[in-house]
């Protein structure tokens, strides 16, 4: 099968890239080895967070936030976006000073989206928080969305714009041809002028085929969800001194993350929940939200995601192969970036450049 662009990986990044390319009239085929949203894209915590990101990601996250605000314009659906803010709690004055220093750095560069709130403002936002916290980093425009819903919506929009999405197609090899690339799969050969690698935790398999292996580590961060509770929390809560992501969904359930890892059998794509580590998450919640003590945990799970050693993604053109581009290794905080990544990749593919600063994400850094 022949097309303009092949995208390897039907997760959120691949689908976003597909829909942006298709919007500009490009013929796109997405090759997904399983089904969209099967791993990290579908089962992540759904945080729309600009707060506390790596400095290199700031221009991207700010651009992405604008896109989420108007996500209906992009995909004709709201993806269950809720923008009620995110806070990062300081429990001590030292922690608050660290946050203040960050805000100062950002403001020196002209970014106003993160700011410090005092304890009175914090308790107004998070009344159920244990007493004694001194303040927080706050962004009122952050929030969350439902990841599987978003993935589905992006897929539908990409399809509506004419993209082709093939599930159950695993890429086995790639070869340069006269006018582009031939991708060998378990379902035959696909060819295209250009290729985009959005294969997430599996992206290095593809990079290896191009002889540009990167130190990507697949990991499976664990999440848990509680029974439904009456509404008590609008903002998403993190903390300086704890690994925590804590939010109440619209249906009343509370999703608790903390980046603790499940045991991962990558070959079999199966993870085993590590309750010894998940216990730490439960202790953090019990400590910061005493009213949660008797709340029932209904389910735990883990999504398989690709991590880079410096915790920022690889975005840009291949160092080894002309017409091949990468967008992977989002290290468990790619969900919020997904709309802008699609835009960036479509610009790289079609225009050869983008106006957003992506130099820090170059694959040549490894």
């Amino acid at each position, binding site marked *: 099968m022949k097309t303009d662009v092949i995208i390897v990986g039907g997760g959120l990044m691949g689908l976003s890239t597909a829909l942006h390319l298709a919007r500009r009239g490009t013929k796109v085929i997405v090759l997904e080895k399983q089904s969209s949203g099967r791993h990290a894209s579908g089962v992540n915590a759904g945080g729309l967070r600009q707060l506390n990101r790596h400095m290199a990601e700031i221009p991207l996250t700010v651009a992405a936030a604008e896109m989420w605000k108007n996500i209906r314009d992009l995909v004709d659906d709201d993806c269950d976006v809720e923008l009620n803010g995110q806070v990062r709690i300081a429990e001590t004055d030292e922690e608050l000073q660290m946050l203040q220093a960050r805000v100062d750095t950002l403001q020196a560069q002209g970014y106003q989206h993160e700011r410090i709130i005092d304890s009175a403002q914090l308790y107004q936002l998070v009344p159920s928080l244990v007493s004694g916290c001194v303040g927080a980093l706050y962004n009122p425009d952050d929030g969350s969305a439902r990841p599987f819903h978003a993935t589905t919506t992006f897929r*539908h929009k990409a399809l509506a714009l004419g993209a082709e999405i093939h599930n159950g197609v695993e890429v086995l090899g790639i070869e340069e041809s006269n006018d582009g690339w031939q991708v060998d799969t378990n379902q035959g050969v696909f060819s295209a002028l250009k290729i985009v690698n959005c294969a997430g935790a599996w992206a290095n398999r593809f990079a290896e085929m191009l002889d540009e292996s990167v130190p990507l580590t697949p990991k499976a961060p664990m999440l848990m*969800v509680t029974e439904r509770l009456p509404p008590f929390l609008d903002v998403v809560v993190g903390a300086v001194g704890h690994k925590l992501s804590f939010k109440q969904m619209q249906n009343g359930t509370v999703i608790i993350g903390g980046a603790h890892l499940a045991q991962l059998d990558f070959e079999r794509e199966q993870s085993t929940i590590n*309750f010894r580590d998940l216990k730490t998450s439960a202790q953090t919640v*019990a400590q910061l939200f005493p009213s949660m003590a*008797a709340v029932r945990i*209904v*389910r*735990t799970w883990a999504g398989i995601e690709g991590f880079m050693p410096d915790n920022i993604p690889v975005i840009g053109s291949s160092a080894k192969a002309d017409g091949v581009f990468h967008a992977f290794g989002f290290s468990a905080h790619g969900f919020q970036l997904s709309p802008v990544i699609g835009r960036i990749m479509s610009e790289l593919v079609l225009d050869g450049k983008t106006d957003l600063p992506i130099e820090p994400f170059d694959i040549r850094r490894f």
Partner: protein
Amino acid sequence: MKHQQHHELVIIGGGPAGLAAATTAANTGVECLLVDEQATLGGQIYRAVATVPEQRAKLLGPDYQCGRDLLDQFSASGAGYLPSVTLWDLNSQREIGILREGQASLMSADRIIIASGAMERPVPFPGWTLPGVMPAGAGQILLKSSGLVPGDGVVLAGAGPLLLLLAWQYLQAGVTIHAILDVAPAANFWKALPHLPGALLTHHYILKGLRYQIALKRAGVKFYNGVTNLQAIGGESLEAVEFTHRNKKQRIDTPLLLSHFGVIPESHLSRCAGCDHHWDEAQLCWRPVTDDWGNSSVEGIAIVGDGAGIGGAVAAQHAGRVAGFESVRALGRMDTKQRDDAARDDKNWMRDDLRVRPFLEALFRPPAALLNAPKDDTLVCRCEEIDASTIRNAIRAGHEDVNQIKFQTRCGMGPCQGRQCDNAMSQLVAHQLGVDTMVAGGYRIRPPIRPLTIEQLAGLEEGASK
């Protein structure tokens, strides 16, 4: 109470299969612990067998007393026993998450035998979630453990031997049975017939069924056969049952409807552990893939009794012993020949006992439409209140297996962990997509398979880390 954290063998479930497995292993000197969710041994079939008064035991029938022998042998074996344990996790490394008296802890074992038994097949028919509509098994539990019977009479509906047994037990207890509605299609009889010669080798099962039926008819209980369009009607709670019988719409007023559509393996534990499962088209349920010795696809985990596929209490006992001997071998206390010799009789008896199954499965098979084509407005997932039309819409939107549909609709994501809708969802999706149930798939089961509170997890006793 502080208990040991690692065991040579842990047996999960105190019904006939678990009791027999534990007794067998302990008798050969294996250190083993039986953990059970119930406060007393016996499982569902021999519930409260040790404590039930003589009068009620008689009411429950002679089979019930067989359980007492099993219990005596278990008590004499020296196997350890932990009652009232909630199991909330089992993983492929043979770690077990348990909850006892509010304390969560992890336990591990060299070998595990899952004997978690059966559960009633949940079937989403219109009105099945109304108060006053109960699974017949729940009615039987009340009768067995506390002698409770419905005061204002009852309608029994469904298919399967338990329905007749419970009706007979209620009859003995003086309960008014307004009617028995049999949903098994009349054609089942002809489909079952070829299996009759095999079944006759264990004719006592068939005689027993006939005996119940004769006793009920003699007492004037009204039977409706080949019932379709079963509906529970009511506002706040059940008021009546409506159904079609011989092309005529019928209505019976009743405050209580006990429904029963057969039993299926309780497979959440074995699925949580990652054991391979397959869809059994004869039993219409997910069941674990096991070898002749009960071993699952996960090293060191065996599954026996009804939890491995419905075979009844007698076959479960034999299977328990067979897996017991196999675990003794795996732990190095027997060689293969000793195991084969020791297990020979049980293997033969089990095979004989199972001969009746194809006949029973064909005879009591619920009609396909009842299982795979619930009406659009019938709730499939009662926890999340997801109806069949929502699932059909998700399929139309391009979701191609039950887990994608679960993600999209939240069907199966409630506190029951999908126990109630798993089977129905798999069949509905397979039917709607026109694919095998294996292709439609079953829910991936995530721990905790029983809810655990934040503070219980925060206080987890970790045990020996491996």
